[in-house]
Structures are given as structure tokens and as C-alpha cells.
């Protein structure tokens, strides 16, 4: 007996007491899909790349980004960023400036000369891509990274599609576009210019291709019947914007009327202002709320002095003038004529009424289904013709660069599976990390950083880029505003708040584990996890 006075038993430890047996609910680490990622038409892992950016590792961030989208410098300028509309941070202050950080990474990659990781082992397969717009470029990039030999045939004299022949320079400087296209070429993608595909079947046979991805866009300007006199100058928007790329700038005159309400109409009107037009007037049948153009674009155009005539149609065009009729919306929201007319002076009328797809190259391709002027594809982006896939503006979808890039990626992955004779099972999607899964108490207040904007004088006389980028310090700030929705960011909350020390910290980058011998299932870890990365599941008792 070597116990001290009044002590009769050896000291024991509570570790023998496995309190985990009390548990009725069991915490589990989960991953939820951040709403930004879910909303990105190109399927970017936004939260994933922001996590690298916020640690200051921009190259890793860029590499993570380009796993899904090879054009960050372009995206960071022209994407309408549906990710930001979905961002959970909106409930706290303002959405994370995802698009500005993306542009920062894209520009930095160009500045630093970062190149794509080399392709996987060659598959020996050859794929033809028709059209070097965003969809074709994206598909070619992903196919090349998967080890396939890709040739893009492009009808035009330069690659880029509508990114070059539609979107004006003041929104997308060509240096950024050129650099990102060149990087895709450097991966081994062959782009043959001035090489329009007239008949797909012939092109496939000639080149011995195993599969094809079509992304010819929508380039046929839609016309409306407008009585016009002999001398009236009526142009179409695509033609005007396209000629901006050439030596001869289009002559539009001092007073330009643009007919239409989409982004193209705005781009033409803003271009006209920059070419010296004193009046650039947009005539649109419906109201501003119903305009397909985005709000910020309308804002920017109005700031630059573009004038708007809502609820108006063009009745006729005479030399030097147009006759415009006022409209009113009926109960169904459809514009109806009122008979009230006015005359506007005009040197040029530009029609921006949308574009149709030129489907002539598809003549003789069996099994193809065309409805409403666009090619029908399955969920795997394959047309009715086996081995022929399609995406971008020529298939039913929202017509944006980002959707086009997303189609390119998806098609590339399915083409890869198809060439390997596999039917890729649809990827399992995680539950969405909705705002109610977060505990936002833990995030500090931090409003969004705004991108600097070019001074007004320069905006109406030059084609210099209007919206500027972030610098390294405010890009870091912006990246750090991300809440990491649904993805553990190793904040140590669960490790800290467990009253039973039942959370094991595994070390940097390794996350945490539960020690179920002692976890009583109180649920505090799940309640206090800021980003919703812990779920409580009923225990089998």
C-alpha cells in the first residue's frame, strides 16, 4: 500500500469512459456545392481557385481555374458572372467580386507567361473542331489535354469568333484574347485559318477524323422588313462590328440609329459614339425592363451619351431620316402599335435584331435534327449523328461566351468517353451549400472592391478598355471575402468548440476527423461550422 493518507484506489483516467455510446446523432464532414460553382456555365470550381488565391498562391489558383476554363482573362472581362448573382456573400454585404479576381489571375498568367500543363499520353485519336470561337477553342483545349490530336478549321482570317468579330475592343482588348488563344495553340492544337468547312462529311473523311465538334456560332444577321428608299443606308450590326477588326473602319456618319435591344445593339451604339457619331440612338420595341441587354451595359452606354427610345419601332427609312412609331404594351406584355409617329434624323440605320445559324455545312449529315434554326443535341452534346457533337450559339442555349466554353468542355469530356468506348456516368452532384447551411457570424464585415473605370472623356473618343482590373493587393482582399461555402477551410471551429475533445486535427491541408469513441453527438461542431461542412446524421441504434 503506497497510497497517500485516505486514498485507497489507484488514479484512473476518464479515457476509459467511451461516452460515444451516448450518441444518437453523428457528425460527418461533408462537401456541399457552392452556389457560385453551381451557377457557372463553364463549371468552374470557383471556391476552389479562390481558396488558393486567398492564400496568395496565384499560380495554383490559375491552374485550378483553367482545369475548367482556358480563357480567364477573357472571362474576367466579358462574362456576365451569374456566379456573383448566386454568391452567398450577398446576404452579408455584397457578392464576392469573382469576376474581377478571375481577370486578375488571367492577366497575371499572361504577364508571367504561365503555360498549360502538358497533355496526357497521346490517345492516337483525331478530332475535328469546326469554328475557333470560344466553344471550339474550349473543346480543342480540353480534348488536347486529354491526349487527343485536334485540328480546328476556322472560316475567318483570325481565331476568336464573336470574341473578336463581335465584342468591341473597349470591353475586350485583343492582346488578352490573342495571348489566351496562343496558349491553346502552344498546347498542340492546330488552328487552320481561312478554311471554311463546306461539307462536314467531306472534311471528316479527308482528315481521317474519329469525331467532330461543331461550333460555328450564329452569324447570319436577322432582317426585318422595313420599307427603305434607294439611298437609305441600312447596315447590320454584326457586319459593322466585324469591320471594326479590319483596316477600313465603317463610315456611320454623325447620326446613327440602332434598332434592337440586345447586347449587340448596345455595342454598336457605343462603337458609333467612339467613331465620332454625335447622336447614337437605340430604338427598341419594348421597355427597358424587358431589354435582353444587361443592366450594367445599359448604364455604361447611357453614361457615354447613347440615347434610348423605348417602346418604339422603325416604320420606314428614308435618306437622312427614319420614321418611328410609338408602341404600348398590351396585357400580355406584347408591344402593340399606337399609330403615333415621329421622324428622327439618321445618316445610318444599324439593325441589331439577332443572328441565325448558317447550317449549310451539315447538308447530308444523317440523323441530324434541326429545330427553330438550331441543332438539337442530347445531354452529352452529341447530335443525332454518331460522333458529331455540337455546342455554343448553334445549339439551343443562352448565347454567351461562358455557355459556349461550358459546352466545349462538356463535349470534350463526352467525346473522350465516346472515343474510348465508355459511356461516362453523369457526375454525382453534391447538395448545394445554400445560405441556411452557413453560420455567417464568423465572417468579418468586408464590402466588395470596385474596379476602377476609365475617365468619361476617353470613353467616348477611344477604344481603350473601360473597366480596369484589380491589383495584387485588392485582388487578395477580394479573394479573402469568399465564405468557402460548403467546403472546409480549416478554420478550426469544430476542433475548438467540441466540449468533449472529440475532434482530431489532422494537420494543414488534411482537415479533421471525429473520434467517435468520445463524440456525444451534441451537434455544436455542425452548428458552429461557418461554411456548412458538417452534417448530423441519425445514428443507427
Amino acid at each position, binding site marked *: 500500500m503506497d497510497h497517500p493518507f485516505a486514498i485507497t484506489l489507484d488514479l484512473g483516467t476518464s479515457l476509459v*469512459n467511451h461516452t460515444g455510446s451516448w450518441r444518437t446523432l453523428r457528425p460527418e464532414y461533408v462537401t456541399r456545392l457552392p452556389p457560385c460553382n453551381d451557377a457557372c456555365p463553364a463549371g468552374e470550381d470557383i471556391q476552389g481557385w479562390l481558396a488558393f488565391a486567398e492564400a496568395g498562391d496565384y499560380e495554383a489558383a490559375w491552374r485550378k481555374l483553367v482545369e475548367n476554363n482556358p480563357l480567364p482573362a477573357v472571362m474576367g472581362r466579358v462574362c456576365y458572372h451569374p456566379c456573383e448573382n448566386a454568391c452567398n456573400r450577398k446576404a452579408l454585404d455584397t457578392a464576392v467580386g469573382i469576376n474581377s479576381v478571375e481577370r486578375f489571375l488571367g492577366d497575371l498568367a499572361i504577364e508571367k507567361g504561365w503555360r498549360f500543363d502538358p497533355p496526357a499520353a497521346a490517345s492516337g485519336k483525331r478530332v475535328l473542331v469546326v469554328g475557333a470561337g470560344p466553344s471550339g477553342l474550349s473543346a480543342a483545349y480540353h480534348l488536347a489535354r486529354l491526349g487527343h490530336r485536334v485540328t480546328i478549321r476556322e472560316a475567318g482570317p483570325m481565331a476568336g469568333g464573336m470574341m473578336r468579330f463581335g465584342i468591341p475592343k473597349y470591353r475586350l482588348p485583343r492582346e488578352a484574347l490573342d495571348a489566351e488563344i496562343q496558349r491553346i495553340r502552344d498546347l498542340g492544337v492546330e488552328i487552320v485559318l481561312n478554311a471554311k468547312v463546306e461539307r462536314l462529311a467531306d472534311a471528316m473523311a479527308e482528315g481521317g477524323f474519329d469525331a467532330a465538334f461543331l461550333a460555328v456560332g450564329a452569324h447570319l444577321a436577322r432582317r426585318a422588313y422595313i420599307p427603305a428608299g434607294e439611298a437609305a443606308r441600312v447596315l447590320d450590326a454584326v457586319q459593322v462590328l466585324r469591320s471594326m477588326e479590319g483596316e477600313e473602319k465603317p463610315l456611320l456618319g454623325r447620326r446613327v440609329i440602332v434598332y434592337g435591344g440586345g447586347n449587340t445593339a448596345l455595342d454598336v451604339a457605343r462603337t458609333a459614339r467612339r467613331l465620332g457619331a454625335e447622336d447614337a440612338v437605340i430604338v427598341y420595341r419594348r421597355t427597358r425592363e424587358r431589354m435582353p441587354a444587361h443592366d450594367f451595359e445599359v448604364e455604361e452606354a447611357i453614361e457615354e451619351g447613347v440615347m434610348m427610345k423605348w417602346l418604339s419601332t422603325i416604320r420606314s427609312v428614308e435618306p437622312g431620316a427614319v420614321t418611328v412609331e410609338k408602341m404600348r404594351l398590351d396585357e400580355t406584355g406584347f408591344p402593340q402599335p399606337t399609330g403615333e409617329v415621329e421622324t428622327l434624323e439618321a445618316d445610318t440605320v444599324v439593325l441589331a435584331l439577332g443572328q441565325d445559324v448558317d447550317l449549310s455545312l451539315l447538308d447530308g449529315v444523317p440523323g441530324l435534327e434541326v429545330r427553330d434554326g438550331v441543332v438539337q443535341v442530347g445531354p452529352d452534346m452529341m447530335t443525332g449523328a454518331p460522333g458529331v457533337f455540337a455546342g455554343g450559339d448553334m445549339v439551343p442555349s443562352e448565347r454567351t461566351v461562358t455557355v459556349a466554353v461550358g459546352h466545349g468542355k462538356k463535349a470534350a469530356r463526352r467525346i473522350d468517353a465516346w472515343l474510348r468506348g465508355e459511356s461516362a456516368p453523369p457526375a454525382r452532384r453534391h447538395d448545394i451549400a445554400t445560405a441556411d447551411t452557413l453560420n455567417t457570424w464568423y465572417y468579418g464585415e468586408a464590402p466588395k472592391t470596385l474596379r476602377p473605370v476609365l475617365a468619361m472623356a476617353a470613353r467616348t473618343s477611344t477604344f481603350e478598355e473601360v473597366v480596369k482590373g484589380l491589383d495584387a493587393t485588392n485582388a487578395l482582399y477580394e479573394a479573402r471575402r469568399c465564405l468557402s461555402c460548403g467546403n472546409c477551410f480549416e478554420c478550426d471551429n469544430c476542433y*475548438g468548440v467540441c466540449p468533449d475533445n472529440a475532434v482530431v486535427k489532422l494537420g494543414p491541408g488534411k482537415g479533421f476527423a471525429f473520434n467517435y469513441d468520445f463524440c456525444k453527438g451534441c451537434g455544436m461542431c455542425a452548428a458552429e461550422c461557418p461554411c456548412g461542412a458538417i452534417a448530423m446524421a441519425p445514428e443507427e441504434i
Partner: protein
Amino acid sequence: MDEQHVATAPAEAVQKLRYYQKGTFTVGNRLVAEEERTVQASTHRSNALTCGHRACQGCGEALGARYAVDAAMRATGNNLIAVNATGCLEVFTTPYPETSWQLPWLHSLFGNAAAVATGVAAAMRVKGKPHVRVLAQGGDGGTTDIGFQCLSGMFERNDDVLYVCYDNEGYMNTGVQRSSATPPAARTATTPALGPEPGNVFGTGKSVPKIAVAHGIPYVATATVADLHDLERKVTKAMSIRGARYIQIDVPCPLGWGAPSQDTILLARLAVECGLYPIFEAEHGVVTHVRKIRRVTPVREYLKRQRRFAHLFRDGRDDPRLARLQAQCDANIREYGLVGPAGEDE
């Protein structure tokens, strides 16, 4: 603060934030230097109160005790002895001969922890080990009621002890009886929700932190399990001071308060945000720091989540005494200046 980034951040953001990276208020933060993270974020924390203890699921007291003792051990290089009053913390950690404590630990009686701690501190001095420090701890019953005389004596003599009171607002270990720290209107076993004014009586009870301040001792603070950074800072500061020190920590009790176990931290947070539990610091009789409310919240948001206050919302109607509780919060907000821009170190 990270100077380089401050230079270009928007002006308002610089004012409000210490680190404007996500997770500013979390236990850890992989973006800040190791030494700026909390003790609890470290895999080297002592886990003074280790697994296998028998506290209820979600016990705020178990959590608060590990937070406080781990921080005190870090601050003293593990040269720490704990003295514990009777109560849940003693019972659930140490059913003899088993214990969860990972430091020298003594239990004597319900009401004498402060006096025993005084004795341990004296012994260390006599043995020539003044670097070995003493932490006394107990529940609100053991502190504000039965242990109060010993506590006041320890304060008055300025003995070199940090006394930590884990305030769960009642005698929980013996079945949730009222203490002098039980809030008005709360139902306990001895203040049942019966009669015209159910629950604890208004106008009773006392504030021991204020009484401690009145003793003029070197350091007094209130804290909460909902703000770990603040709690650890206060314990660390207390251990840098010699003489009598008192820290009272709000530790929600799911069982006694009638709340889901996962809400413990939420309740502690709401108690602060509504103004019912003012978080402050005082040195030598003077209040020196107040933790500002971040998102002002009506007291009903705090009360309605607890069954001990359910009678205030009976039949879908608000009891008129809710207004009295709100007035108490408003008075605290005025008295301590709980609303307004945070100070430099916030």
C-alpha cells in the same frame, strides 16, 4: 495588421476589420501567423479537461473550463494547480478514482474553493515555487452564494489566485435550483413556472463581477464561450498579473436552460448581443474595456430558444415581463456603452 493590404482596401473596411480575411472570428485561421491563433487552434493545447468526462451533450461549462484552463496553462508554461468547488465541473470530471484533468487538481468542499486556493498559493510561496500559479474554479452557486464569503476574503487580502466562475445561472448539479445568478423570470426547480408571476422573482440576485470590481482587485473580467479570442486574451492577461483576479464566464447549460445541445454557443452569443450579459474588463476598481455588441438583437430572440423562459411566450402572447427584461438589457447597454464603434484592439 497586414500593412501592405490595408493600403488599398476600401476605407470603411480598414476601420472595421482587424484581419479582413474570411474567418476573422473563427477559432483558427490558416491565413494568420501561428502565434496569432488561439490556444484552442493548436494541436499542442493541453486539453486540461480531456475526453470521457460525463458532462451532458453540449455542456457549456465543460467547454468553458477547457478554454480557460488551457489558456492559463499556456500562459504559465503548465506551472498551474487547480482548485475546484463542488458542482457539475467537479462531479462530471472526477468520479473518484477516475479523472479527466490533466493538471494537479484539488477538490475540497462546495463553499471553500477560494480559501483552499489561497492556501495552495501560500504553500507555493513558502516552498519557494512562486512560479507555480493557482487557479480556483467553481459554478455560480459555489461562487456567488455558498462560496461568497471565502471569495470576498480572497479578494480583500489580494491573494495571488485567479478565480474563474462558470456561470450557468443555477445549481445544475443538484437538479437546477435557483442561485443568486439566476436571471429574472427563469424557471428553476425552486422557482417554478406557476402562479401570477411564474419563474424567478424580479429585483433579486446580484452581480458578483461588480462586487469584485468594488473590492478594487487588480483584474476583473466577464467572458463567454461564444467569444474564444476574448476569453483567451482575458485569461492570459489575468495570468500576467499577481494578486486576486476574477473572471466570470457565461456557460449555457442545455439541460438546465431547456435548450438543444447544439445551441450552447448560439445562446452564449445571443446573451451578449442582446445586452443581458455585458462583457467587460476592470482593473483596480475601474472598468477599462467593454466588448461592443456586433449585431444588436432583441432579448426575446435569446429567451424564446430556452424552455426555462417558455412561460413568457405562453398561448402565443408575450408576457408583459418581457418588456422588463428588455429594459434591463437597455440599461446595461447604456451603463456599459455596449453599442458603438469598436475600439482599437477590437
